[in-house]
């Protein structure tokens, strides 16, 4: 049985923890609104770009000579996985969810006897992945000191990926990030960015296709556009991730605050009970002392 003093101390410490989680929740809520806005503003750009690429690929005359970024190298020997996570913790299952998805994919890739290469963005993902898959990590990025991730950072990573691709270091590139659906739901996602089209998507086209004029040739436009598309997709993933992180943190901190409240209630009842018990005990002692006289 803890003494009254111990209980008092515990109540105090839980209360101060509650204050911290409450403050974090407020901050996350404020940041979330902004991040959400950014994510929504960024969506049209990447969508439209995908659209243009789709239109371009429809009219490509010579699929044999199409850029490799679009159709792939024809092999699927080496996978490059880019795992996007946060730099900070205390955001519920946010980081673990991405890592869990990524790890199950790693397992599958390795199980099929293929080569694996990993790029991590964000320090939390790195910590979780390097325990089991440390030797596969080829590059790690962290933008901890950046307050807000801009297109430049996405471009930096995009260039690095293209650089590796040009050196034929990998055949297929996948992106792991959390898609922001709403404050409570974030869905971890795996998106393939190289090659830009999957083979089966070629069936369901032809409908309402417009005839486009191209200037210069399709191939040249694609060569200019595809590297940009990779940076764009990365940037989109960044924005979605940032919004998801804040959303996830907000719900996590909300839960923590509520739990702390419950704990305080429980401890207070305990405290009052033992206080009452000690008073009763003292009274009994006094009374029985008086009786014995």
């Amino acid at each position, binding site marked *: 049985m803890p003494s009254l003093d111990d209980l008092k101390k515990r109540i105090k410490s839980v209360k101060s923890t509650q204050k911290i989680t409450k403050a974090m929740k407020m901050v996350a809520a404020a940041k979330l609104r902004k991040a959400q806005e950014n994510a929504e503003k*960024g969506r049209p*750009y990447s969508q439209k770009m995908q659209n243009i690429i789709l239109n371009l690929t429809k009219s490509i005359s010579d699929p044999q000579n199409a850029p490799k970024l679009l159709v792939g190298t024809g092999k699927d020997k080496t996978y490059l996985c880019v795992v996007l996570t946060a730099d900070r913790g205390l955001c519920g299952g946010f980081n673990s969810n991405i890592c869990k998805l990524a790890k199950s994919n790693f397992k599958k890739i390795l199980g099929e006897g293929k080569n694996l290469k990993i790029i991590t963005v964000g320090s939390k993902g790195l910590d979780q992945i390097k325990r089991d898959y440390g030797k596969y990590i080829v590059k790690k990025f962290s933008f901890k000191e950046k307050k807000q991730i801009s297109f430049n950072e996405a*471009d930096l990573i995009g260039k690095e990926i293209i650089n590796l691709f040009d050196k034929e270091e990998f055949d297929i590139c996948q992106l792991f990030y959390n898609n922001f659906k709403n404050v409570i739901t974030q869905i971890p996602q795996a998106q393939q960015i190289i090659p830009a089209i999957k083979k089966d998507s070629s069936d369901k086209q032809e409908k309402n296709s*417009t005839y486009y004029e191209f*200037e210069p040739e399709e191939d040249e*436009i694609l060569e*200019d556009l595809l590297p*940009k598309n990779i940076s764009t997709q990365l940037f989109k993933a960044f924005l979605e991730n940032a919004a998801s992180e804040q959303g996830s943190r907000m719900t996590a901190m909300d839960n923590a605050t509520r739990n702390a409240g419950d704990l305080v209630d429980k401890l207070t009842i305990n405290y009052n009970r033992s206080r009452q018990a000690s008073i009763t005990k003292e009274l009994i002692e006094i009374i029985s002392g008086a009786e014995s006289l």
Partner: protein
Amino acid sequence: MSNFTVEILSPAKSILKIEAHEVILPSFEGEIGILKDHIPIITFLRPGIIKILSDADQEFFVEDGTVEFVNNNLLVLTSTARKLSDLKKENLDLIITETKKAIDKDSLKDKEKYLLTYKLETLKNIIQ
């Protein structure tokens, strides 16, 4: 004059969405003017100035970008668009010196050199 919709998008946000009757774009192979009911076209940009002619004319400096025109919707995707009136002279001077330095490097490919030369020329024109 009949109008069509112009939209300039950057990765982070939508920069502009208005109705215009003519837009002049610095396409990679030369300037093109787009009027209503132009045939669908996809092209990409070199450094230059996008001129939007409408009730209130606007000009944007871009370094690169992709353009799609379809169904009287002109879509410009660029990460570098800046409104001409927002560009300050000091900033321009800085960009010009940087661009000059970049041009002098030997490792440049022809295409990169071509793009940088255009960038420099456009910037000089803006200053004048």
